[in-house]
């Protein structure tokens, strides 16, 4: 029972990362390998604001999220648009964007090492026990989970009930056809990419309240987010959320029953299972 709840709490936070990556890969068609670094950068932001100004991480969101949005918009506009223009096919864009974002991930790790050093960092926020169903849980985990659910809900509503959300979904389905019905595809792609980055950074802020992170841990989160997105099916928000919960549970199981150092093994195990049995994602339909 305890494992179940911790797993769900963790999974809810992971779903933020997966949402971020889904927006970037599903809509903007950028396979962003620097996603995890964006998360760590968000976490660093919250850490810095908390330790330097004693502001709660939830207030920090107000600064971190717009900053991440702007940064990612600039990245898309000035670094990735040339690649989009250069690419002759979707496959070529995929290769180019993988290479470019892989380079960016290293550059970002380097920058963070420069500014913050290589130590592990964590801070104590709301580290009080909260009793749910007779067992104690960290209040910070619960609050992070609630905030993550709120952000996910907000995003889901925005995607499904606003005109911009509709346009973004149209681009996700078919950029060519979206252009034909007067949707500004480059603008929507940039918006989706920036939004994805902002959501990811928000996820970083949430995670930083209860996880110990360091500058070079981003790649682990990139991998987790990618596994979730593939498990849920690319571009499928509902699938991503379910997959995030599954990963959170699997990781908690492995961490509490075998060894906390083996969390990546859980992700790989799920990944291999998905590749073997449902490469189109949990709810995806098999394409021809």
């Amino acid at each position, binding site marked *: 029972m305890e494992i179940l709840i911790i797993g769900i709490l963790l999974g809810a936070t992971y779903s933020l990362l997966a949402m971020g990556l889904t927006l970037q890969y599903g809509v903007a068609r950028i396979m962003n390998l620097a996603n995890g670094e964006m998360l760590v950068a968000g976490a660093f932001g919250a850490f810095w604001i908390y330790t330097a100004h004693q502001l709660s991480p939830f207030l920090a969101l107000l600064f971190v999220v717009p900053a991440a949005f702007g940064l990612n918009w600039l990245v898309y506009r000035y670094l990735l648009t040339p690649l989009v223009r250069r690419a002759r096919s979707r496959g070529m864009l995929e290769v180019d964007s993988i*290479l*470019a974002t892989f380079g960016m991930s290293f550059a970002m790790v380097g920058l963070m090492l420069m500014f913050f050093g290589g130590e592990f960092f964590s801070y104590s926020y709301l580290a009080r026990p909260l009793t749910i169903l007779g067992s104690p849980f960290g209040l910070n985990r619960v609050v992070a989970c609630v905030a993550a659910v709120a952000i996910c809900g907000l995003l889901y509503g925005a995607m499904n009930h606003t005109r911009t959300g509709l346009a973004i979904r149209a681009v996700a389905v078919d950029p060519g056809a979206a252009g034909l019905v007067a949707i500004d595809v480059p603008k929507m792609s940039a918006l989706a990419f920036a939004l994805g980055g902002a959501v990811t950074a928000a996820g970083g802020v949430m995670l930083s309240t209860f996880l110990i992170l360091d500058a070079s841990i981003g790649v682990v989160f990139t991998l987790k987010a990618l596994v979730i997105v593939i498990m849920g099916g690319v571009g499928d928000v509902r699938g991503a959320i379910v997959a995030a919960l599954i990963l959170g549970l699997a990781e908690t199981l492995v961490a509490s029953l075998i060894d906390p150092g083996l969390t990546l093994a859980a992700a790989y195990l799920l990944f291999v299972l998905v590749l073997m049995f449902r490469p189109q994602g949990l709810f995806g339909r098999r394409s021809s």
Partner: protein
Amino acid sequence: MSRGEAIRAAAIVAAFVLLALLPFATNVDYAMSLALPIAMYTVLATSWALFSGPTHYISLATGAFFGVGAYLVATGIGAVPYPVLVLLAPAAGALLAGLVGVATLRLSGVYFVIFTLGLAEFIRQVVTWVQNNFTGSRGMYVLTDITERIIYWELLALAVLVYLVGWLVGRSRLGFAMRVIGNDELVAAHVGINSAGAKVLLFMVSGAFAATVGAVMAPRYTYIEPGIAFSSELSFQVVIMALLGGVHRLWGPLVGVIPFTLLWELIAASFPTQTVLLLGVAFLLIVYLIPNGVVGRIESLLARRRASPGGGRE
């Protein structure tokens, strides 16, 4: 064999013989400190390009294979003679590559990239866990009487082998199949190429080479622990160097390895704390400015020159 080919083959053999004589040069320590990494990265980058060049499937797992080879030596050195371990390493690398390939290469390239991205980190976690729980200590000493000179010769022999294999693959049905796959996988499937099988096979060749390099380099580290052996930075450097040189020619990566290794020695010496950042920036510059590598750039310039008779302007 035509006259031109004979001359070229003789020149290549002569070059390798000269390189093999390098350890007898004067000022040998400095020369070796540069030649050893160059030889190592040449083998790694060339074998990487063997697979990733024609198929455009970016493998980020070189560090994982390298680590498997190095770890094999570190684990077995007390019980098994070193040469046997070096011969076992390619088998281990090929096995790992085969497993990864079977799991991912039947599907689109993205799955492969993702799988290889975390592979080194994943194996590192598993190895650390096994060592913490079953063997006690985490680090291991590799104490042998193998000198740098011998390692250098081994690497040189591997380089000869990798070029030979690359040359043979390029002329074989497999190489042709890879080029068709790289250009259009659908066409490849329609003309009856078993594309998944071909890809897995070539990835195994590439993985076997990387693992062998790891095994050969292990004695140089003397002390090996998971964090050292399974580094993602190595995978990254290999990709950078291969791309810098150009991956569509067998000797392309070499053109990238030599300047990059020399430059890197300089950078690592002058800015030891900013190496990761500079690596990333260097990588971005290559991806944006010379997407086909130096070799591709030179070739397109030459082609342009040839297209306009008189040689001057376009």
